[in-house]
């Protein structure tokens, strides 16, 4: 297990001139752009971790004139707030990333789906967009970006639910296959990327694929922006190299009494102290969209789990049985065990249910509820029962 100490990186928030980079990119062929992203090893930074270059390649290979670039700015995972900062500080880099993607796959229109809770960013974004559109016009690239706002639905961060929302419907995830690169927004080939992923795509064009590839580990190339919160004296947003262990992370960010770290938000895993050393923060260990929450020994893990389950029961789209009913059962289940209405053996049934939800739910939300549930119940059983 290679241990990389907590290394700060400054790719995301570095100020650049979009014009310079895009002019250079315009000289390249779409295949070259895509190859550089593939070579860099960049994987999606929203949490799912799909190889970005591959995604662009699939979309590029689809026939048809109507293709879309979508920027997923529906950052709703509890504990994630880095996209807000990126959009506030360097929005032009996000637009630039979308423009590069549009060149790579052959799209003329892009959408930024911004969560409704970030509506206060709209005036700034619209002003920056005006500049961006002017730049596109000057450089002769037919690509424009439209803003679409969310309205308070966590599930709309799921790619197909996001498409449904832009299309004016309830944000209910679709059946897959077909996947977005084949049939996405308006059922056309779509490339949907996280805010952060798009900015990295820009920096890969600036510094080259190798520069990015040299950071991180074999399975987790590059760096990532983390949102750190909870029991930490240094809550905030940090861009760090991927591949560090949770131990190293806690050594830097903990308050000296960290008993657990929730990596990946409510949909992620709870890493207990005894596993800090062996758990890697990266795609080979515990992947994350950036949310890192530290809990010290004063925290009740029952409260933490209850909070997460309550969140899911409310935010589930409600379509599929395992998620809609499963979340309610998990929530009410731990309440019943706590109150003594059900014996602690009932927790074993719930763990089995969580395992079913993981493989039978229709989308990532239902499939992820079990992560937090199982990892907290397994590692903090007494706190859940008593």
């Amino acid at each position, binding site marked *: 297990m290679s241990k990389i100490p907590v290394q700060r990186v400054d790719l995301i928030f570095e100020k650049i001139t979009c014009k310079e980079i895009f002019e250079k990119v315009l000289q390249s062929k779409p295949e070259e752009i895509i190859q550089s992203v593939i070579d860099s090893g960049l994987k999606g930074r929203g949490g799912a971790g799909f190889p970005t270059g591959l995604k662009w390649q699939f979309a590029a290979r689809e026939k048809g004139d109507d293709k879309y670039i979508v920027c997923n700015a529906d950052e709703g995972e509890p504990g994630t707030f880095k996209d807000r900062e990126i959009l506030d500080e360097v929005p032009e880099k996000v637009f630039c990333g979308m423009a590069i993607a549009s060149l790579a796959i052959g799209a003329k229109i892009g959408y930024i789906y911004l969560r409704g809770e970030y509506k206060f960013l709209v005036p700034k974004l619209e002003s920056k967009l005006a500049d961006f559109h002017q730049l596109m016009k000057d450089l002769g690239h037919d690509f424009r970006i439209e803003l679409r706002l969310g309205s308070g639905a966590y599930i709309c961060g799921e790619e197909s639910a996001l498409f449904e929302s832009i299309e004016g419907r309830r944000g209910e995830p679709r059946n897959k296959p077909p996947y977005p690169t084949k049939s996405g927004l308006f059922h056309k080939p779509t490339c949907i990327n996280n805010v952060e992923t798009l900015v990295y795509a820009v920096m890969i064009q600036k510094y080259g694929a190798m520069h990015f590839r040299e950071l991180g580990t074999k399975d987790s190339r590059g760096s990532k922006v983390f949102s750190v919160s909870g029991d930490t004296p240094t809550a905030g947003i940090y861009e760090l190299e991927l591949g560090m262990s949770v131990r190293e992370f806690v050594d830097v960010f903990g308050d000296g009494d960290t008993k657990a770290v929730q990596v990946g938000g409510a949909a992620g895993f709870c890493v207990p102290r005894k596993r800090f050393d062996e758990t890697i923060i990266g795609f080979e260990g515990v992947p994350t969209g950036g949310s890192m929450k530290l809990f010290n020994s004063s925290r009740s893990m029952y409260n933490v789990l209850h909070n997460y389950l309550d969140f899911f029961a409310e935010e589930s*789209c*409600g379509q599929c049985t395992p998620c809609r009913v499963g979340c309610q059962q998990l929530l009410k289940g731990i309440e019943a065990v706590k109150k003594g209405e059900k014996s602690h053996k009932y927790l074993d049934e719930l763990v089995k249910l969580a395992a079913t939800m993981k*493989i039978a739910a*229709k989308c990532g939300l239902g499939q992820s509820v079990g992560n937090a549930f199982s990892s907290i119940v397994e590692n903090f059983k007494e706190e859940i029962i008593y």
Partner: protein
Amino acid sequence: MVKLSINGLLVEVPEGTTILDAAKKLNFRIPVLCHHDDLCVAGNCRVCVVEQLGGKALLAACATPVAEGMQILTNSLKVRTARKHVIELLLSEHNADCTKCYKNGRCELQDLSNEFSVGDHIFLDLIKHKDYTIDRFSPSIQKDDSKCIRCQRCVRTCEQLQGVNALCVAFKGAEQKISTFYDHSMAEVICTNCGQCINRCPTGALVERTYLDEVWDAILDPEKHVVVQTAPAVRVGLGEDLGLVPGERVTGKMVAALKRLGFDAVLDTDFTADLTIREEGTELLTRLKKALVDNDKSVALPMTTSCSPGWVKFIEHAFPEFLPNVSTCKSPQQMFGALAKTYYAQTRELDPKKIVTVSIMPCTAKKYEADRPEMRSSGFKDVDYVITTRELARMIRQAGIDFTLLKEDKYDKLMGKSTGAAVIFGATGGVMEAALRTAYEIITGREVPFENLNIMPVRGFEGIRQATVKIEGCLEDWKFLEGVELKCAVAHGLSNARELMQAVKDGKINVHFIEIMACPGGCLGGGGQPIPTNQEIREKRAAAIYSEDMHLPLRKSHENPEVQLLYREFLGEPLGHKSHELLHTHYKERERY
């Protein structure tokens, strides 16, 4: 073609086939709940999940297309555990009062849980935390949210099949439910009462409002004279709920059963169907004459049929500007009711106050129709109770009758005789065909120029059909129609009705006469017919209807001797004063939402 293996057996299917259908070819029936052959894929109940070797997540068989080299397991340990969990979860949010429930014994959730989930239920009861009420305000449809498993079949039916969109999915998460606009009662919104949602609901969440107790009370009341009428489509569907296969004609047995149940007179809606053709045919010809001879621009053409109350309510909400186009004729059911308490009562010397009219319908909208305030031409409520084919089957079972052993019997006289033209009312295109058989002969003195009187162009299951009949060699009175190409259109299912009426509104279609049935397939696919329903079953019922037509001695409405007697003794002539009083009606513009 794609090759894959299911449970170790190889199968080759066309690209795009779902795992569900591929498995069927190998005789593996994967259980489903949200899937329905008539509707688009949902993939949300997760009952049909299957395992793919080497895959992480389970796949929904109904929603996943096959891929080359797939290795699917439909009954592995993972699948069985997941399936049991899904059923247990559904049961935990379902009010299982099976012994009281109308769908007991015919409920898809009940069947599934019996197959997979024996013993104590694992999970907590979630129903007791919710605040559900049962919506019993509509005379046709009862909605019980405590039994809903959110498969969304009803929403998809109302949206895609019927294009009415009265039902929607509201809220999300734990609060998610199937709702109407602002959760108003079904009686208050644009619901047309067609009952297609009931036909597809897997549980007892959506059922018809039943009136069995009231009908039994009437039958068992010695003071009351209970008259029953039977719709055309009932006689080709009733058998399915009583142990027979789809497509069996059970007219004789049905009449025998009704007599055994204790009805005082067993009569036939087909009688008034023939009557409707006389009235409506005359109305059409009158409108045509006004348009072609008098050049009256105010005449509303095309004329549409009015026997489908689901269609009538639909047009009242969606196209009120076309209400003048709808025939003023009542439906056969309502004509019957009005005559039962006047003509029948007089002829049989009975006190109309003591007559109770019951109708057996393949339809739920007829319950609403009977309740319409204008349906009191006899001075009383013309049709007292409407029960569905399903309810009749229940009555027969309650009476302890083995339907299959019954010897055939005949309808009673006065209002029991009918022709083949009447029975085809039950299929889409049937009213059109019956009208053409009569109208053509009235105008030309000759039979319609189609072999065996079977007007094939108006038959079939295509959503919107058009036909043209050239009128030549007219009789003297009808010379104004010489050379006219009578253009007709037929639509079934309300989304097709909407498309057709929009085309008429936009001027894209130019016809004289339109037949519209609210239900896919026509009445034979009605909201009151036995469940399940699918295209194959509807086709079998249609074949039975046309077979019934072929086997009847009289095939044209104007040949019905009892109808001829009715006009001679009572009504006078079509569209006469008495007809207008008893057999014609008016409509009401309704809200768009």
